[in-house]
């Protein structure tokens, strides 16, 4: 990371301080495009996964024990499976459908679909405990007070389980940003950040990678600090209320 400011190309010798690699990083269209792709895929996938997962979690808890077990174990499958198996199985699916119908050419759309798929378990498994903690009477009370089931869910249940939903969403987002294996197999020609880092490291050693890693590290650090700060703020608020 320190070497991102180094003016020579060597990663061992220190020859002087420079911002040049940062400049060239921001001039590299390929990297900027892949950064763009990564963020776009991560946002779309995590939002969709959060919505689908939350609704699904609510539905799963309404089932009887046996079906609950079945669906939950299928939900866990992408987590248990090695990533590479997830990747190639999705790739086989997309290639297969493409051969038969001509749809689903590998690209950003298939990338988003597969990202939603492996993000879903994180959302479902973080929402379900929150739903279990919920008193069932709240929902019924809302119905008795004249809410439609839909608005009761939206206004009462969702508000109560929000922490779980947000955690699930954030987890989905980070998992999606960090993913390499699945995108590698399902993205086709679309480059995400991980994939371009991979190909950069294969080709030649460029200090741009160092610059990039410094930036990424700093941004996640800031994100973490913000989250921690918010948490401690909320704790203080709670204490004041008590």
């Amino acid at each position, binding site marked *: 990371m320190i070497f991102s400011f180094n003016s020579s190309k060597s990663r061992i010798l220190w020859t002087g301080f420079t911002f040049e690699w940062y400049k060239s990083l921001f001039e590299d269209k390929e990297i900027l495009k892949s950064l763009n792709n990564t963020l776009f895929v991560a946002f779309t996938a995590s939002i969709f996964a959060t919505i689908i997962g939350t609704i699904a979690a609510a539905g799963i808890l*309404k089932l009887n024990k046996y079906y609950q077990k079945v669906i939950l174990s299928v939900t866990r499958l992408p987590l248990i499976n090695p990533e*590479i198996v997830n990747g190639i199985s999705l790739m086989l699916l997309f290639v297969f459908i493409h051969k038969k119908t001509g749809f689903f050419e590998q690209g950003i759309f298939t990338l988003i679909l597969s990202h939603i798929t492996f993000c879903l378990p994180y959302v479902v498994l973080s929402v379900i405990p929150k739903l279990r903690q919920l008193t069932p009477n709240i929902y019924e009370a809302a119905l008795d007070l004249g809410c439609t089931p839909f608005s009761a869910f939206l206004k009462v249940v969702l508000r109560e389980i929000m922490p779980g939903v947000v955690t699930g969403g954030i987890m989905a987002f980070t998992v999606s940003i960090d993913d390499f294996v699945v995108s590698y197999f399902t993205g086709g020609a679309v480059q995400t950040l991980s994939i371009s880092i991979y190909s950069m490291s294969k080709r030649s050693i460029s200090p741009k990678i160092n610059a990039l890693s410094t930036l990424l590290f700093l941004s996640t650090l800031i994100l973490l600090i913000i989250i921690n700060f918010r948490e401690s703020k909320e704790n203080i608020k709670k204490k004041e209320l008590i």
Partner: protein
Amino acid sequence: MKKRVVLPPYIFWLVTFVLVPMSLVVYFAFTDKNGNFSLSNLNDVFLYSNVFLRSIWLGFIATSFCFLIGYPTAYIISRVNIKCRKFLIAMIMLPMWTNFLLKTYAWMTILEERGFVSCFFQFLGIGKFSLINTSSAVVFGMVYNFITYMILPIYSVLIRNDRHLVEAAQDLGANQLKIFLKVTFPLSLPGVIAGIAMVFVPSVSTFVLSKMLGGGKDLLIGDIIDMQFLGSVYNPCLGSAISLVLMILVFICSGIMNQFVKREERTVIAL
């Protein structure tokens, strides 16, 4: 009433994007290039049995190291006061938030011939020492990348343990070592098992690490699968067969682990 509207889309999603792809893997594993049923792919898998053994062996070493380093770390973290604990956990989580390829890339620099580690050893007078492009570098990468998954489950179990049990053991005259062996460690077993599973599965199936740190000499299962699909030897049928075997291996592992955890829980309840 609600469940009728709410669930079908999700079930549809699970079926199309989880179950159907997995059955496609099975289907391709049992067909040859012309689409006829055949067992030849599964036969061919045995040609790679040395790769399987190597992957499992490296995964095993990496998991053991993770355990040997991770358990004491988790234990120490669970003992210090809350402020310290939060800070340490954040420190341990931090590498998890950086991209796995970037971390590996950084290690490539450190381990390389003229890199930091070799300079350090030269400084000590041991002589030139290059780790990159060896299997130890690959194991090192595995340990570094996956150790968080070992520490966190163990930590979360240790932190939940009832302190009174330790005090009771002390009152009954057990010394520190005995308390650890007979009380703390058995109680933390579910966490240990979860950690082992979470480290072992990705280590066995990893495929970039060996390329980046191992110089592509010692192929692992992941690399072979990658080669069959996107590499020079295009043969998705064989690739599927290898993945199928890998999948079954992992399922057997997690099945054994599950059995073990359940029995543990049962004995705890019975006690």
